[in-house]
């Protein structure tokens, strides 16, 4: 058996990311809540509860993701251990941890107040929970699940099909959680039924367990055809079955009888015999199994903005070292300098190096690495690229010599010019294969430096960033779903401040050049995260803190420097170009589209390529958005009887599409980054060799060519699209609720937009599942 034991110990199944993420997240939320409850003086919360909860999660992990799972297909006894863990170990441990309050307290406040609190007040849900956790109902469900799933045809089905196997485990765990809830009665449960009821329930549970165990133990033939077929390592299928029966019998009996005696003693002799919870008293109480009012600070939804000063949540500026660095006045320049140097290297290689994209730093770094890292940073943090933007460095350094005294022409103070430049950029990228032309890429970078310098030499107010820069516009729009935002820490401090240094600047520190006045700023639109406001504020009253991603899509205050979104048709056009551009940009690289294009070129002639690309982009970036958004706005306005003009409805709802577009950019750029990230290594080695530096060694071009796409990558891409779709739908729903009379009309108003979103999502999934041109690699 030594080799079998060795094999068992080595047979850990591959980590299921959903299970692992679920367990870690649940554990983290509980720990956070438990710590907060302890900090607030709750003496009830001891280490035992934390240990019980973590122990319960560990037992769940053992049951589902340990060698027990691997061997369950071979031995019934291993399978029985797995089921015992799910039904007799995990649920009592979790309930002993009294998880309700710690889990609630550990959740972010918006989730707690807007999502969970209404559920606690829902009468149907309270009634349902009350009935399900009544000891008799819970016992019936527990016994039914146990016996039904142990019926030979159903058990065999679960052994042969992973889907049924998952369902079996879910049933066992779910019914066991219901069964053990009234037995453990975790704080703050207040049962309406008599605790004496638990005694016959536990006894009956033990009786049925004994009967089923006896069936296994005393049967002289295998009950399950599957285990009769699989070979045994010594012994027979019947031996295995008998061992499984004993495992079920002895620990099972202990699991039922020990609480039975404990509760019996407690009921007979009063408190102190191990029965837990406030409902452990003999007298039945009136409140029900879920507390109606747990604790006001825990679940009370805030009807007004949180009174400040707040206990600040996460603040990037308060993170050790990093926060200190960011608060340093010259942090931006310190970040810009290395990127500007890198841009210089890139320009040099682009102009002087080999004109093969995959072998040149100008072909690899901007089109694979920078784009991928940019979008991933927007997802994880926010608009950090604009913070470190190298293109602004020359004008920043030359600020003292630059007049920059003119105001940007009034008739150009919108995003229309930026929209035009963005469309041109997306078109040029495809039409002139910028990704494959280091020379053009180098000139593009140089052009960027020159444009930023010239425009900002003449015009004040960061005109280049606000009105021209296509990259900036991309970042502004995508950062609407980023998790961080520059915010005021205490509005009272701003109310008493008359200097407005955050906009005007002080002591040589510029204020916000984009005129975003912090007390009235909302969201990330037009914020370059330059942190000038942070440095200029004399009260240290600004934070880069966590925000609900996408919140600005459905709220519409009059934003400082931006105004209400509903009146910004130019911004809506920018959003639509970026949303439809995400799909068009990715579609231009997939097999069927490229074949279709090649086919037409073969028929018409090689010269029509530019015309085709132009037609494709006009269709994708102009015609299609106008048609779909126009039709959706018209139908939405009619079905939902929305107030406001057609243009206003179209403008406002366009913002709801931002998350979906973000999901597509994320899926696309992360694909290229994750499949081709190591192309930088041989390219850098080649660059070093060209300069005569042999230290990094000879380039090995293998990594730059034709890497197979990992199986998990399409799943990750679809996950990004899923999240984008859900956030878009939610934003659309919130917009509809705000503009409609009643929920039914809101749903009608949402319907056309939901259709547009689902169609875009389907297009995204189709793109993800097609073979993608591996641009920037030698195979591309």
């Amino acid at each position, binding site marked *: 058996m030594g080799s079998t034991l060795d094999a068992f110990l080595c047979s850990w199944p591959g980590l299921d*990311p959903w299970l*692992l993420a679920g367990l870690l997240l649940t554990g983290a939320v509980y720990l956070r809540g438990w710590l907060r409850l302890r900090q607030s003086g709750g003496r009830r919360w001891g280490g035992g509860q934390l240990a019980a909860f973590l122990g319960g999660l560990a037992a769940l992990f053992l049951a589902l993701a340990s060698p027990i799972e691997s061997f369950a*297909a071979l031995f019934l006894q291993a399978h029985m251990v797995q089921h015992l863990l799910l039904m007799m170990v995990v649920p009592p441990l979790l309930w002993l941890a009294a998880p309700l309050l710690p889990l609630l307290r550990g959740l972010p406040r918006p989730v707690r107040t*807007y*999502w969970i609190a209404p559920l606690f007040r829902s009468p149907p849900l309270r009634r349902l929970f009350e009935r399900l956790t009544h000891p008799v109902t819970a016992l019936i469900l527990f016994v039914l699940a146990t016996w039904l799933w142990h019926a030979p045809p159903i058990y065999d089905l679960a052994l042969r099909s992973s889907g049924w196997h998952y369902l079996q485990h879910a049933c066992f765990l779910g019914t066991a959680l219901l069964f053990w809830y009234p037995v453990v009665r975790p704080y703050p449960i207040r049962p309406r039924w008599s605790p004496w009821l638990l005694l016959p329930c536990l006894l009956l549970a033990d009786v049925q367990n004994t009967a089923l165990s006896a069936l296994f133990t005393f049967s002289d033939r295998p009950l399950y055809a599957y285990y009769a077929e699989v070979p045994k390592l010594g012994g027979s299928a019947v031996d295995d079955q008998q061992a499984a029966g004993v495992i079920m019998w002895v620990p099972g009996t202990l699991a039922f009888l020990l609480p039975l005696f404990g509760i019996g003693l407690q009921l007979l002799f009063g408190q102190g015999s191990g029965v837990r919870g406030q409902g452990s008293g003999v007298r039945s109480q009136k409140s029900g199994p879920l507390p109606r009012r747990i604790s006001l600070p825990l679940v009370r939804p805030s*009807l007004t903005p949180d009174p400040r000063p707040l206990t600040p949540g996460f603040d990037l500026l308060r993170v050790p070292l990093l926060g200190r660095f960011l608060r340093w006045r010259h942090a931006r320049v310190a970040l810009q300098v290395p990127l500007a140097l890198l841009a210089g290297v890139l320009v040099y290689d682009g102009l002087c190096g080999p004109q093969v994209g995959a072998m040149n730093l100008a072909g690899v770094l901007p089109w694979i690495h920078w784009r991928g890292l940019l979008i991933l940073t927007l997802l994880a943090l926010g608009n950090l690229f604009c913070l470190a933007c190298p293109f602004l460095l020359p004008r920043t350094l030359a600020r003292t010599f630059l007049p920059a005294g003119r105001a940007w022409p009034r008739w150009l103070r919108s995003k229309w010019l930026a929209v035009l430049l963005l469309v041109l950029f997306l078109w040029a990228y495809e039409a002139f294969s910028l990704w494959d032309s280091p020379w053009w890429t180098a000139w593009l970078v140089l052009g960027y430096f020159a444009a930023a310098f010239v425009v900002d030499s003449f015009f004040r107010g960061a005109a280049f960033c606000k009105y021209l820069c296509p990259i900036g516009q991309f970042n502004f729009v995508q950062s609407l779903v980023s998790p961080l935002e520059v915010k005021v820490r205490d509005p009272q401090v701003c109310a008493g401040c008359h200097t407005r240094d955050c906009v005007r600047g002080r002591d040589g520190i510029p204020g916000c050049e984009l005129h975003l006045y912090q007390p009235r700023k909302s969201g990330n639109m037009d914020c370059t995260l330059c942190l000038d406001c942070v440095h200029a504020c004399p009260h240290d009253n600004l934070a880069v803190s966590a925000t609900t991603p996408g919140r600005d899509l459905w709220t519409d205050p009059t934003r400082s420097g931006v105004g209400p979104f509903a009146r910004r048709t130019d911004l809506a056009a920018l959003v639509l170009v970026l949303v439809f551009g995400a799909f068009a940009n990715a579609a231009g690289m997939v097999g069927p589209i490229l074949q279709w294009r090649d086919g037409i070129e073969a028929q018409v002639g090689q010269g029509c390529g530019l015309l085709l690309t132009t037609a494709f982009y006009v269709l994708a970036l102009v015609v299609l958005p106008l048609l779909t958004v126009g039709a959706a706005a018209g139908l939405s306005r009619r079905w939902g009887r929305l107030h406001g003009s057609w243009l206003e409805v179209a403008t406002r709802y366009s913002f709801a599409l931002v998350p979906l577009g973000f999901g597509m950019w994320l899926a696309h750029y992360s694909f290229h980054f994750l499949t081709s990230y190591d192309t930088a290594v041989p390219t850098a080695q080649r660059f070093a060799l060209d300069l005569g530096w042999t230290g990094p060694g000879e380039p090995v071009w293998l990594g730059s060519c034709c890497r197979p796409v990992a199986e998990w990558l399409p799943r990750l891409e679809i996950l990004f699209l899923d999240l984008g779709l859900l956030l878009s739908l939610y934003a659309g729903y919130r917009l509809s*609720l705000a503009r409609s009379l009643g929920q039914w009309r809101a749903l009608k108003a949402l319907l056309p937009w939901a259709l547009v979103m689902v169609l875009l999502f389907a297009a995204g999934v189709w793109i993800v599942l097609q073979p993608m041109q591996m641009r920037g690699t030698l195979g591309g």
Partner: protein
Amino acid sequence: MNATTRSLSRWLLLSAFAIQPSAALADGGTVRLSQRQGGYRITVFTEPTPFRAGPVDVSALVQDARTGRPVPDARVTVRAALQDRPGEAIVHPATVEAATNKLFRAALFEVPEPGWWEIEVAVEGERGLARVSFEVEAAEAVPRWWALWPWLGWPALAVLLFGIHQVLVGRKGPTRPAHTREP
């Protein structure tokens, strides 16, 4: 490849590993045969159930025919060929590394098309060479999107749960902070 790149590669590989979901019944599934051959008892399992064209798992448990103990040093090879084209076989080694249950040897490969396949498992070890074979019909491969249905379908479940939540809480409209307003 320098240290940084190696480190980055490791991290990305680890991330890939973490995202890779495990098969619920790896090395399990359907028992295709269990018979004595030479000095061995060979049991062969296949996944998925039902057997389909596309990625498949053919796992073998090799035991000493006399004692029933696993034979750790046996080399196992899986050969799969369409019945009407026996000359065009897919040959794949079955290894412990590819198996989740380390008593098994697993071969993970792609069955390219549907039809009747003959699968032969050859075992070579101290007790000599043994071959067992069986026939299995591979159904049509599921479309690629179908294999990804949990990833495509969960937003629908999320929308359904959200709908239930809204019905349960009977919310007429979101509670909005006072400073926000629709123009």
